[in-house]
């Protein structure tokens, strides 16, 4: 299975945590997994998660601390609601797991569970390896006709 399929399999069939309002995105903000309640806005949320993490990471370089970014957590919250983002290292690449929560009685417990969820995913992915991949060297499309481009852009109203 590829990574997207593996992660979807984990969340839909194996996960024992509450995964509402949860998303997993690549470092560039492309969504790998999104819980059903976030799906209508998944792409926008993914871009914001990637952006906010990268901005925080860049800001952090001014503090002079040189710890691995995988040790960091991003939290933006008040007493009962907020955003929590954790980095996940998968096959050597950075991904971010984010959850959005509101009206939560015990956010500290939610965050703890989210960290456990992260560990569980990492364990799952270490057991269930992503199918071996290879990098393609040839171009995907050798040519694209104007008609094909017109068809792609037929969405305008």
């Amino acid at each position, binding site marked *: 299975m*590829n*990574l*997207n*399929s593996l992660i979807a399999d984990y969340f839909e069939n194996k996960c024992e945590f509450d995964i509402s309002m949860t998303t997993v995105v*690549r*470092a*560039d*903000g*492309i969504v790998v997994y999104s819980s059903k309640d976030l799906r*209508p*806005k*998944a*792409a*926008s949320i993914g*871009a*914001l998660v990637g*952006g906010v993490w*990268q*901005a925080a990471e*860049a800001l952090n370089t001014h503090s002079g601390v040189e710890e691995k970014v995988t040790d960091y957590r991003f939290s933006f919250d008040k007493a009962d609601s907020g955003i929590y983002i954790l980095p996940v290292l998968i096959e050597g690449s950075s991904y971010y797991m984010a959850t959005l929560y509101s009206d939560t009685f015990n956010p500290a417990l939610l965050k703890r569970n989210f960290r456990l969820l992260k560990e569980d995913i990492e364990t799952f992915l270490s057991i269930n390896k*992503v*199918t*071996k*991949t*290879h*990098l*393609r*060297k*040839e*171009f*995907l*499309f050798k*040519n*694209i006709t104007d008609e*094909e*481009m017109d*068809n*792609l*852009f*037929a*969405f*305008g*109203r």
Partner: protein
Amino acid sequence: MSFVNYHTKEINCKIVYYGPGLGGKTTNIQHVYQRTSAGAKGQMVTLNTENERTLFFDFLPLDLGQIRGYKTRFHLYTVPGQVFYEASRKLILRGVDGIVFVADSQVERMEDNVESLKGLKANLEAQGYEFDKVPIVMQWNKRDLPNTVSTQDLDRKLNEFDFPAFESTATTGEGVFETLKMISKLVLLNIKSGLDN
């Protein structure tokens, strides 16, 4: 970098609108947003200052149709144009697949265009890109204004590598989709590295 999922036959690409402040980058993607049917677009994200200047980025996800069985999804970003947001521009360029350089055609903005283009080149090279190998489309915007530089002069001063160039008036939408269609084509033709799984 573009993400091709050969298993699900999906292509994700990142296009960044770059250029000097107040050149019309945000207006470009606002026009795309307004002229796109609901099913093909996601929520547009705008991170503005109080006076509606781009603070971090604008973002518009577009689900185009299929090309040879591949579902294509383009993520359009703009960078903040103001000089002091250089750090944000660097972040947004990460993983870029194609760039639309939106130049302001007005005579008094030529210096800003030149500076912005220099910055783009430096930022791309700092991230390991070869400037002339990246899919880039030039857009000469604000052609409706009276004090514009000729397109020949814009080409001479800003388009050293003969990238495709389009005239536009983003406020009316003229040239906006032509530009987007061209950069999309160049990006799709440039896709080669993907994980085959």
